[in-house]
């Protein structure tokens, strides 16, 4: 039987002792609203059983927030959904108990019928749930209002008219302007932040005792994230509900948690009050996570190169408008994605381009390589001693330029052709350039793989055999194949887990030292930019707001927009919470 086979260490690892649990309970000075004991969940897959959650125990207290932290695959989301019995059919709860305290005494959620009346009364009624993807978590074909009304009618004895009035009240409560009109709008007419607000309104419609928030702000920009977290904190204060928050972001944890449980590979490796986790962690994994996060919160120890003399790349007045051609053949620009951007990149420099979604940073990066043609402006390339205008280059010249300025992509899965071996992927630019053949080519590919920290033997494998971080290394090796001068890294680390992210950044810094590279580093994550870059360009709505040394931008920004952006970044230190008393930017 697959159920009984467990890894030898699984039973050997100690549970938190009874005494330690008592500590937790007395510390909160009241009984928990919900307690989970020894929860285990197995996924029955085709070839194996994955023990996704193993022996997890925790308590939720009124008015308090517990954060479940972990990297991808740690089982944190499954744990959260199991509380509402919302797990996939192939997942089975194989042990443990989930006890909900209610006015009518204890309720064992794990023993209820999976879709029975009792558990449905709990869902939405006693426990509310919000998700990561505000885009897809709401039905696209129903109005926002009707989706909230439905929740109200299910759990609260109301007439339709009362429910409508209550919906407007709820939308106002989550700070949506014009709630009367907005209730009749569809989800796709809402921005990401607004959708998440509507989602919160829906989850809180029936005044639940517990709110489960599964990565509620991961898909949002930092300033929006800060606003949403503000809102949740305020509502928690007002209603006194307990909150279970699932996140991978330790900074966010430090900002909002009262206590923390760190998960890895289905187990809680360490749990305790937030201060203890951050300032006296016991488990090596917790320490590793923390150091990866903390390291990114400081600048790497490197001296910035001189920004005098001749820059490698000079961008002047670059513009890109997206729009349509009207009937007379004139271009009408509905949106200016990039508006009059000027910047310089000096040799050996790491230039960061920071901005929220829609700021035009990705379009800018792609225009530098003319993947997207600029509508206006100039890009001057001075890598070969003399100046060449990139926007006017023809094919052979452009190919040469593109071999000197390379791109590393965000998505390590989409950027490698699944039909090609790693050798074919990395060798492709060399073959096209006609630089090397046969054994020399193979030797070069092997060298490149070693350069990015992979084994030579990896070259015979296909991309599907590698993890995200390893794939990103392959992408970097491809970029290095033609001995480039500049690498444009477009969100190159944002799809990676925090510990892998730090490794890849260190690899890039190491390569820079060895190969005399310059980087244009496009990112939305300010801590990554602070760690990696010498100078930073802040973009907002297609324009450059502020340019300056990284340390200065990250600690003493001059412009109000930058100030609001920086202060919205969660600080991974629970003793110094800054997100909740941040500067706001009214634009």
């Amino acid at each position, binding site marked *: 039987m697959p159920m009984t086979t467990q890894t030898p260490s699984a039973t050997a690892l100690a549970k938190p002792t009874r005494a330690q649990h008592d500590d937790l309970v007395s510390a909160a000075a009241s009984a928990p609203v919900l307690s989970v004991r020894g929860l285990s969940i197995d996924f029955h897959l085709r070839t194996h059983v994955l023990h996704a959650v193993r022996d997890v125990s925790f308590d939720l207290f009124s008015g308090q927030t517990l954060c479940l932290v972990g990297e991808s695959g740690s089982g944190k989301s499954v744990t959260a959904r199991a509380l509402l019995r919302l797990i996939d059919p192939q997942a089975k709860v194989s042990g443990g108990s989930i006890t909900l305290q209610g006015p009518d005494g204890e309720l064992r959620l794990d023993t209820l019928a999976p879709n029975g009346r009792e558990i449905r009364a709990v869902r939405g009624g006693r426990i*509310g749930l919000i998700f990561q993807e505000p885009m*897809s*978590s*709401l039905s*696209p*074909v129903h109005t926002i209002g009707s989706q909230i009304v439905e929740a109200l009618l299910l759990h609260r004895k109301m007439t339709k008219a009362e429910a409508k009035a209550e919906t407007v009240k709820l939308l106002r409560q989550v700070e949506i302007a014009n709630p009367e009109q907005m209730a009749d709008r569809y989800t796709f007419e809402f921005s990401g932040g607004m959708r998440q607000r509507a989602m919160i309104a829906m989850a809180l419609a029936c005044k639940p005792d517990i709110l489960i928030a599964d990565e509620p702000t991961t898909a949002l920009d930092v300033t929006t994230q800060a606003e949403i977290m503000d809102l949740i904190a305020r509502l928690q204060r007002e209603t006194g509900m307990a909150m279970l928050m699932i996140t991978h972001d330790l900074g966010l944890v430090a900002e909002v948690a009262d206590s923390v449980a760190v998960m890895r590979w289905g187990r809680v490796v360490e749990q305790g009050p937030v201060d203890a986790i951050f300032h006296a962690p016991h488990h090596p994994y917790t320490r590793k996570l923390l150091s990866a996060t903390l390291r990114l919160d400081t600048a790497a120890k490197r001296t910035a190169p001189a920004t005098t003399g001749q820059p490698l790349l000079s961008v002047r007045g670059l513009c890109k408008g997206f729009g349509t051609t009207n009937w007379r053949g004139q271009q009408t620009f509905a949106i200016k994605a990039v508006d009059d951007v000027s910047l310089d990149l000096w040799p050996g420099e790491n230039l960061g381009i920071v901005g929220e979604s829609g700021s035009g940073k990705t379009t800018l990066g792609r225009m530098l390589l003319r993947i997207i043609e600029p509508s206006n402006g100039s890009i001057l390339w001075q890598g070969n001693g003399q100046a060449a205008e990139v926007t006017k280059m023809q094919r052979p010249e452009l190919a040469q330029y593109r071999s000197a300025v390379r791109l590393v992509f965000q998505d390590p899965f989409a950027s490698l052709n699944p039909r090609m071996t790693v050798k074919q992927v990395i060798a492709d630019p060399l073959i096209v350039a006609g630089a090397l053949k046969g054994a020399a080519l193979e030797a070069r590919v092997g060298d490149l793989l070693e350069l990015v920290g992979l084994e030579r033997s990896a070259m015979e494998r296909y991309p599907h055999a590698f993890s995200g971080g390893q794939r990103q290394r392959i992408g970097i090796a491809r970029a290095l194949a033609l001995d480039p001068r500049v690498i444009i890294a477009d969100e190159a680390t944002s799809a990676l887990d925090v510990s892998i992210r730090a490794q890849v950044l260190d690899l890039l810094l190491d390569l820079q030292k060895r190969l005399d590279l310059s980087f244009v580093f496009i990112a939305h994550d300010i801590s990554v930019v602070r760690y990696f870059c010498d100078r930073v360009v802040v973009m907002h709505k297609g324009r450059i707001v502020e340019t300056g040394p990284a340390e200065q931008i990250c600690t003493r920004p001059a412009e109000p927009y930058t100030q609001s952006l920086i202060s919205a970044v969660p600080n991974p230190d629970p003793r110094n919470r800054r997100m909740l008393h941040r500067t706001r930017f009214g634009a």
Partner: protein
Amino acid sequence: MWVYVVKRIFLMIPTLFGISLISFFIIQLPPGDYLTSLLASMSDSGQTIDPAEIARMRATYGLDDPMVVQYFKWISGIVLRGDFGYSFEWGRPVSDLIWDRMGSTLSISLAALVFVWAVSLPIGIYSAVHRHSVGDHVATFFGFLGLAIPNFILALTLMYVSYKYFGQSVGGLFSPEYIGADWTWGRVWDLFMHLWIPIVVIGTSGTAALIRILRANLTDELSKPYVVTARAKGLSEFNVVMRYPVRIALNPFVSAIGWVLPNLISGVTITAIVLNLPTAGPLLLRALVSQDMYLAGSFILLMGVLTLIGMLISDVLLALLDPRIRFT
């Protein structure tokens, strides 16, 4: 919304033009023109015709004009006067012959469409919700079978089975004793007994295709986060499925009018020939075999137009159903 409808109608115009070109092309395809066919058929039956009359007719029909002019004469006759030309085989204007037949084609197609929907909706939903259950496998198997059996073979088989085992004649719409009889309950029942075979025959492949599409779409939709949201709200499983994913997976059902209708009309054509139903099909085949081209071309044109109208209706319904289409 109205803007959207008007836009759709305007987009139809080039397609309509294309369809009329194809129909005209088919009319012109057989060697010789309409009058040579007419003369041939007349001399077959021993009639003679005055050469002056021939010349007059050549002029009226513009048979000596260039193709483009002929096309415009033909199409403007249809659009402005409802004049589809003349059927020499029947010796009557085409417009006298087609409308009845097109009407019955349309009504049988619509009946088949209703059948397709009524059968595939519940089975599709069941299959998607109970994936890999016994019922799902049975439905999938019959779905494959339904797609694999061509209409006319199914029609022949059903005809054979009902002739052999029930001793029933299944051709036509009525048994001999009811043809031309007054409407009575007996006649209605007789019509129904004749109609179910063509409807089942025509609808089978469409049903099978729609079950597969609905199953695939609904399976996709069921794994979307908004379904979990609906569950987390505390809705019962039945309501979760019916109110959200089914609502969205219904889109292919509505857009099905657009592509199922041409299939159904195709199906009616060939099935009607096998079962000898008084629809456009048998008449079209006969017209084609005897090269009565104006009649044949008119049928092809009207069938094309019918499917275009079907597509328009399905687009409009889709926009009503899905706000995302309406607003963009």
